[in-house]
């Protein structure tokens, strides 16, 4: 199964309802967004005028560069299919691609807050929320669209899909040929691949030819500078091992965290 979202630009009126509903649902800080809407044009597309929108969000990519960038120590994680009860175990860092539903998720309790994943994402779909801090990271935690998995698991649609005033956002399983999203893909809905690579974005766009041309012309992203991402990740993994150790000790709890923080701070104050 691979969850995906279609954005039908024939229906979209660029109202930003999706963006604000998401902010409310997930208490996203004002200055960030798990999704966004940009008005494109009016510009010339060939001899025609075109104007449309770029409603963007995490693409829950087939090959997510953000996942590869995470420097957190891997742990074994067991995934359970809600329907069949089938389980799969996989070694994952603090962010991973779910082997069962295809979404890309973050374990904030293990996130180092280094921002490597945010830098690695060509779409700018991740941010580090500085308000989320713990004994592992005082820099904040990486955050992004989860395709509203907690809502979906509760039988609801993603917040952006629910509020969309024209049903321009359609959510479902791309692997199910009978789903609405798969039908859109069959009709030609496509994702915004970054220049020079294919990473399999699963948020896809459908619309009039000239509008899709304008969208791809204006909004095709560049790949991130992966060497810079790696440097950032490496720094984080070097600076924070003591913190992670303390976390692993677990039972040490508060006292342990205080101890480690005290040590770190001393170092920091120099």
């Amino acid at each position, binding site marked *: 199964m691979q969850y995906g979202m279609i954005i039908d630009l*024939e*229906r979209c*009126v*660029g*109202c*930003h*309802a999706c*963006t*604000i*509903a998401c*902010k*409310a*649902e*997930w*208490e996203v*800080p*004002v*200055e960030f*967004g798990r999704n966004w809407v940009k008005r494109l*044009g*009016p*510009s010339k597309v060939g001899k025609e*005028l*075109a*104007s*449309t929108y770029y409603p963007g969000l995490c693409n829950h990519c087939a090959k997510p560069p953000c996942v590869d960038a995470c420097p957190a120590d891997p742990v074994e994680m067991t995934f359970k299919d809600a329907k069949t009860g089938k389980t799969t175990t996989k070694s994952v860092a603090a962010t991973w691609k779910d082997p069962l539903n295809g979404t890309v998720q973050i374990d*904030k*309790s293990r996130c180092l807050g*280094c921002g490597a994943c945010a830098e690695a994402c060509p779409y700018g779909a991740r941010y580090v929320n*500085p*308000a*989320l*801090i*713990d*004994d592992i990271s*005082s*820099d904040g935690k990486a955050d992004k669209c989860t395709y509203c998995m*907690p*809502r979906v698991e*509760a039988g*609801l649609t993603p917040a952006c899909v*629910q*509020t*969309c*005033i*024209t049903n*321009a956002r359609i959510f479902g399983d791309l692997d199910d040929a009978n789903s609405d999203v798969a039908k859109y893909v069959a009709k030609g809905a496509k994702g915004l691949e970054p220049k020079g690579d294919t990473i399999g974005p699963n948020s896809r766009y459908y619309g009039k030819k000239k*509008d899709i041309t304008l969208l791809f012309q204006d909004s095709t992203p560049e790949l991130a500078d992966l060497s810079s991402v790696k440097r*950032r990740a490496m*720094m984080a993994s070097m*600076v*924070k091992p003591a913190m992670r150790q303390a976390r692993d000790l677990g039972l040490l*709890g*508060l006292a342990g965290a*205080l101890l480690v*923080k005290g040590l*770190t*701070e001393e170092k*920091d*104050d120099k």
Partner: protein
Amino acid sequence: MAFNLTRRKFLQTASLAAAAVPLSKVVSAETGVAKASLEPKGTMDDTTVVGGLCEMCFWRCQLVGKVRDGQLMKLEGNPKSIDNGVSLCARGNAGVKLLYDVDRLKYPLKNVGKRGEPVWKRISWKEALDECGSKLKAVVDQHGPQGICVFPHGASAKYPMHYFERTVGTHNVSEASFFQCRGIRDAAYVNTTGKAPGEFVDMANTKVIFLVGSHLGENIHVSHIKAYIKGLQNGAKLVVADPRYSAAAAKSDIWVQIKPGTDTAYLLAIMNYLVKNNKYDKDFVAKHTSGFDKFSEAISEWTLDKAAKECDIPAAQIKEVAELLAANAPNVAIHPGRFSSWYGNDFQRERSLACLTALLGAYYVKGGWAEPKNPKLGKTSWAAQEHGDKHNLNVSNGKKVHPYSPPGTPTELIRDCAISGKPYAIKGCVIWGQNPMQTVPNQEKMKQVFKAMDFIMCVDVMPTDATMWADILLPESSYLERHDEIKVGTGRIKADDKLPTQFIAPRMPMVKAMFERKDQVYITNEIAKRMGHEKDIPAQTLEDLVDKTLEAANITLASVKAEGGIHLQPGQSPYGVPDDFMVQLFNEEIAAAGFPGAPTYKSVEGVPAGYARLLFGRAPVHTFNRTQNNVWLNHEMPDNPVWLNDEVAAKLGVKEGDIVGFINSEGVKSRTTTSVKVTPGIRKDAVYMYHGFGSANPLLTEGVGKGVDDQSLITKIAIDPETGCSGMRNNFVKLTKDGKTLDIPA
């Protein structure tokens, strides 16, 4: 990335409970210490409060609140709604941030500084109400009730407006929604079809959607946009006349890039073509219109070629549009528009739209104009009283100055009287929910009005550029904290339902009002008591007022709440022309009043050399200036880039993103600057910006000074002669950049 852990931050973290901005609070079972969770909870498990009715704009979508520990976390469309459904627009969703806006008015305030340069002092409600009551009573005692002028807007302003108009007895009420917005449309249709048209076009079921200068897709009214997109998805053709490649134009099949101000010529040519070529609905015209012969004679000069020249569009395109309409009649949606205060020749344009609909037989048919049969409610309010026309500024020597004025008195008549003192003195001003500094053109004139007053009181939710002029400023509870306004309408429970269902949705509070905010019934009644009108009070509380209004439908607030916040009942088909429905193609009464009896084009002032016409319109995430301070909406759209034609920009050497200011043809400069949006999607002789930016009130800490206040550049006022409404698009600007003034090339 540096690992910055300061001592202070460390101590904060160590104390855990104080960690950063608390998100969802959780209590750890192990430690018993409240700790900020890293994962927001989502609103799925929050308490749902029903009965909300949005007023981020005035479409009034039905909503529910998600409340956690007494705090409103989120707003959603009410699942029971057959209007907006579970959808809300960006503004609707952002209501949470209006509710908790730190800049909101909290306590009654008195200006102890100069008028217009306020120094605010917090006072008690008793002191505030005593002062309002005594000062307004003094005005009435000295100058008569006509000495009070009222600028109301929004649901909460209706009750006090009725008080001042009906009980106190002043004619001098100017609603922006009429005199600076849709009043012309309503007046024109009422005097053509007998009905205010609303936006009752059946776009969902139409074959052609015909728009003239519409903001559809830029002004978001949820159920209306749903119908529009549904129609387009069903294959309706879209025809959009606009000087700009608007959001609607971008979805159109035919974009008519019309010269500003010439729309009526375009409409007359379409109608003349239909008549000359026998492509009009003869049956409808015979049964349901009057004055066809005089009408067709009057418009006969409007050949395709003549209009093409006047409107600066190809004759073939006008013909194409006319043929498309004729081929699909009567299932065509000729949209009456909404904001219609454009050029001062607008009554005639709106009359033309109403007549075109008739020629196409597109009234009360599927896909045409079809007024829904809405549920009936009571009209509890201050009792209507006759006050005569002696002090009605719109009556001069027994004759109406603007005979087709919407209800109230045309704004300019009030302002001229207030400034000159002739024919009488206006010395008291009540501003309730309106921001006349940014709705009424010519801000300097508005300031003169304020300066002429003995007393100004203002009631609002937020500070605005108008509240700066108050002597007493009162904080009102918002639409999320009070009962109020009842939305009625029709919809379909299931898409394929044969008949529509009626709904009644009275507003209910989502949370309790905080600080010392009060509702309009409390405030008005307390003032009425102090002005000697206690016996006239129609309702003691807002709930009481709403319940009395609901009586006619045999329901109560309590019963509707139990039904999930919306009452549903069987409806009737909107289709089928009533026997007595008549469209006056030529209106003898209008002719007798000295105006053209048939729709007539009057050209507007041309663009002076070196200038561009200033066009303005709506932004999808803002409701004028009202939402500019909303942190979520401000983040989405903090300012209003000016659209500049790409060829003009190249000649001026102006690039995308450059920062510019403006100077208008009367020498008025913009207070602030904005960025340039270079696009081929606008005519060379016009610039365009979103309306409602550039607030001057420093108490709007988020919105102040962001973008340019288009209203500040609208100083020339064109009055629509039939209605007395303001035309605001006859103002011309040059750009200023780096201290230089840039002439717009021809």
